[in-house]
C-alpha cells in the first residue's frame, strides 16, 4: 500500500480509504491482542492463558468494515447537510429550527396548551400515561425554574436539586407535624427554598463558571447529606411518609373520610383512583404554567434584562450601575423558589420522600434539560424535558441498554445542535415591531 502511494504523490481515493481503514484495523489489532486475543484465568491454582484468535479476527474485521462505513458516512453527511440547510438560509441569517418555532409560537403554544389540557380525557390516556406526563411536567417546571439561574443569569448551578429537596422536606415536615394542607404549605415551601437560594447565593457571588459549578455541586450534596444523617429532624434514610395529599378546595380523593365530603361524593360519581392522578396532573400543569408565565414576564422587566446583561458581561453591567450582588441573589432566590414549589408537589404526589430522591443525578438531569433545550429557551425546555423523561420510558424494554441509548442521544444532540435544540433568542422588546424583528431586519441598514 505504501509503495503504491509514495511515487505518485497523488493517491487515488480508494487507496487512501483502504489505508485509513487498514491503519485503524492495525490500532485495533494492537489494542485487542492483549484484551481479546489472550485470556488468562486460574485453573487449580495455576495461571492458564487461553488464546482466542478467532475473536480477535472478528474484532479487527468489525473495526475495518466499520471504519469504511464511517468514511462513507463522512462523505455523505456534508452533502445531506447542505441539502437540508439550503432551503433554511432563505429565511434570513437568524433562521433555523429555533426561529421557525419562535415565529409560530403563538399558534403552536395554543395548540400545545389545548392538547395538554385535554390530554387526561383522551382515549389513549391511562393511568400510566398520565403519570408519565405528570413526571414530564415536574421536569418542565424544574427546567423553567433553573432556566432563570442558568439560562438568564448565566450562573452554572449544579446543585439545583437542593432546592427541590428543601421544598419537598419543608412541605413534608410541615404537613406531617402541623397537619397543614398542601395549599397552605406551598408558599411556605417556596419561601424556604428561596431562603436557601440566598444562603447559597451569598458566598458564591464572586465565583463564575467552573468554580461556581463546583460550589453549587457541593451545596447540593451538603443538603442531601444533612437530610440523610440528621435522623431526628428528617427521619434520615427512612425518609418521611404519610405526607398529606392535595385536596380540591377541601375535597379529598379518598374512598371515604371521617368527616366532610370526598371528591366523588361531592360530584356524585363513582370513586376511582385515577381521579387523584388526573387532579395531580392538573395541579402540576397549573404550577408549571405559572412558572412559565412568570419567567416570560420577568424576562421583559428590568430585573430580567439585568440578569441577561450580567450573563453577557458582568464588567459592563457594573459600569452601567447594575448591582451585581442583588441581581445575582434575586436570580438564585427566584430560581430556588420554583424548585421549592416543584419539590412540594413531588412530596404530595408520592406521599413519601427520602434523601434518595435528591441525588446529584437529578441536578444533572435538570441541567441537561436546560442545556439541551437551548439556554434560556422556554419551549426548548419542554422539548428537552419530554425527551429526557420519555426516552428512558420508551426504552424501558431494553433494560440495561436504555441509559446507554440515553447517553448516545445526548451526545448526538450536542454534536448536531451544540447550542441546544432551540438556540434562538428573541429580543424582549422590539423597536420596529414584529416584522422587523422576525428575520433580524434583513440587513435594512444604509
Amino acid at each position, binding site marked *: 500500500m505504501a509503495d503504491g502511494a509514495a511515487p505518485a504523490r497523488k493517491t487515488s481515493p480508494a487507496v487512501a480509504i483502504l489505508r485509513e481503514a487498514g491503519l485503524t484495523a492495525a490500532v485495533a489489532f494492537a489494542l485487542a491482542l492483549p484484551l481479546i486475543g489472550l485470556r488468562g484465568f486460574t485453573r487449580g491454582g495455576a495461571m492458564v492463558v487461553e488464546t482466542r484468535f478467532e475473536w480477535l479476527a472478528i474484532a479487527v474485521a468489525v473495526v475495518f468494515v466499520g471504519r469504511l462505513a464511517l468514511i462513507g458516512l463522512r462523505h455523505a453527511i456534508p452533502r445531506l447537510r447542505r441539502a437540508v440547510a439550503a432551503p433554511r438560509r432563505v429565511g434570513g441569517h437568524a433562521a433555523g429550527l429555533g426561529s421557525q418555532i419562535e415565529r409560530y409560537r403563538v399558534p403552536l403554544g395554543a395548540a400545545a396548551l389545548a392538547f395538554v389540557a385535554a390530554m387526561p380525557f383522551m382515549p389513549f390516556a391511562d393511568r400510566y400515561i398520565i403519570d408519565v406526563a405528570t413526571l414530564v411536567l415536574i421536569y418542565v417546571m424544574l427546567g423553567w425554574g433553573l432556566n432563570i439561574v442558568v439560562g438568564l443569569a448565566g450562573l452554572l448551578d449544579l446543585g439545583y436539586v437542593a432546592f427541590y429537596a428543601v421544598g419537598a422536606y419543608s412541605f413534608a415536615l410541615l404537613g406531617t407535624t402541623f397537619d397543614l394542607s398542601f395549599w397552605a404549605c406551598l408558599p411556605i415551601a417556596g419561601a424556604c427554598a428561596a431562603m436557601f437560594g440566598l444562603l447559597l447565593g451569598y458566598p458564591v457571588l464572586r465565583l463564575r463558571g467552573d468554580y461556581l459549578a463546583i460550589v453549587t455541586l457541593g451545596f447540593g450534596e451538603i443538603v442531601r447529606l444533612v437530610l440523610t444523617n440528621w435522623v431526628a429532624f428528617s427521619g434520615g434514610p427512612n425518609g418521611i411518609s404519610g405526607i398529606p395529599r392535595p385536596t380540591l378546595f377541601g375535597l379529598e380523593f379518598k374512598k371515604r373520610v371521617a368527616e366532610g365530603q370526598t371528591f366523588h361524593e361531592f360530584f356524585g360519581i363513582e370513586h376511582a383512583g385515577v381521579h387523584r392522578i388526573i387532579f395531580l396532573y392538573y395541579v402540576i400543569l397549573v404550577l408549571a404554567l405559572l412558572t412559565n408565565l412568570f419567567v416570560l414576564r420577568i424576562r421583559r422587566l428590568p430585573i430580567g434584562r439585568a440578569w*441577561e446583561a450580567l450573563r*453577557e*458581561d458582568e464588567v459592563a453591567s457594573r*459600569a452601567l450601575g447594575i448591582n451585581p450582588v442583588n441581581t445575582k441573589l434575586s436570580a438564585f432566590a427566584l430560581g430556588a423558589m420554583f424548585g421549592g414549589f416543584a419539590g412540594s408537589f413531588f412530596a404530595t404526589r408520592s406521599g413519601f420522600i427520602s434523601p434518595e430522591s435528591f441525588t446529584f443525578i437529578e441536578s444533572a438531569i435538570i441541567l441537561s434539560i436546560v442545556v439541551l433545550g437551548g439556554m434560556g429557551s422556554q419551549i426548548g425546555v419542554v422539548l428537552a424535558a419530554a425527551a429526557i423523561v420519555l426516552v428512558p420510558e420508551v426504552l424501558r424494554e431494553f433494560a440495561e441498554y436504555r441509559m446507554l441509548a440515553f447517553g448516545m442521544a445526548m451526545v448526538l444532540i450536542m454534536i448536531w445542535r451544540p447550542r441546544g435544540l432551540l438556540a434562538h433568542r428573541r429580543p*424582549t422588546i422590539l423597536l420596529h415591531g414584529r416584522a*422587523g424583528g422576525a428575520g*433580524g431586519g434583513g440587513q435594512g441598514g*444604509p
Partner: protein
Amino acid sequence: MSAPLLAVEHLTMRFGGLVAIDDLSFEAADKKITAIIGPNGAGKTTVFNCLTGFYKPTVGRLTLSNGATHYLERMEGFRIARAGVARTFQNIRLFPAMSVLENLIVAQHNELMDASFFSLAGLLGLERYRRAEAKAVELARFWLDRMGLIDVADRAAGELPYGDQRRLEIARAMCNKPALLCLDEPAAGLNPRESADLNVMLREIRDRHGIGLLLIEHDMNVVMEISDHIVVLDYGRKIADGAPEAVRNDPAVIRAYLGDDDDDDNDGAGADGAGARGP
C-alpha cells in the same frame, strides 16, 4: 469658584511593587473635553479603572461634583455609575446576544427599577412601569437615531460591524445619563471618516448635552482637534497639563513620545504638531 466636575488629587495606584500611577492630580471641567494621553503603559486605563471603581486606589481622592459631592474612591463600581460616571471600554464590552435596543434599555436599569418598584409593578402589569419603559425606549430611540443605528435596533449587538459597536457603546453610556462620560480609546480601529464623525459627535455631546468628557486616545488628530484640556502621563506620572497648544509644544511631551533620539514611531503625532508649529 465652584468645584470642578471631577477633581483627582494625589491618585496613586500600586500593584505589588509596580507603581502604575504616581501621585497624579488633575481636574476635568463640566462641559469640556479633557483628554488623557501618553505612551503605551503610561497608566491611562488604570486611571479610568480607579475612577469607575474597578480598582481601589492605593492613595488619593477622586471627587465628583455634580450637584452632590461623591468621593469615588470609596464607592463600589455600580454606585459610581449611579452617581453619574459612565464609561466605555478599550475593547468593546457590549451585551452581544442582546439586541441593540435592549443594550440601551439595560443602561437605564436603575430608573426602570425605581419606576417599577424593583420590577414588581411590571410583574403586575401596572401602567406606571409601562410609561417608564416607553420613556426609556424614547431615549434609546433618540440615541439610535443620532448614531445611525435605528435600522439595526432589533439585531443582536454582537452581529454589528465594529464601527457600529463602538457607536453603540457610546450611545449606551449616554443612555445611562452621566454627568461625566469616560471614553477609553473611542477612535481605536475606526477609519478616518468614522473618526471624523466621532469628533463631531463628541463635540455635540459636550455642547448639546452639557456634560464633561474624559477621553483616553492615541489618535492625535482626534485629541488635538477636540480637546479643551490635555493631561499627559508617562510612567504613571503627569508630565504636562494644559491646553492642546501648550501641550504639543511642551519639550517633556515631545521627549516622552519620541524618546531622546529623533527616532520616529507611529505615535509621532506629537511631532507632527510640533512640526506644524515650527515654521
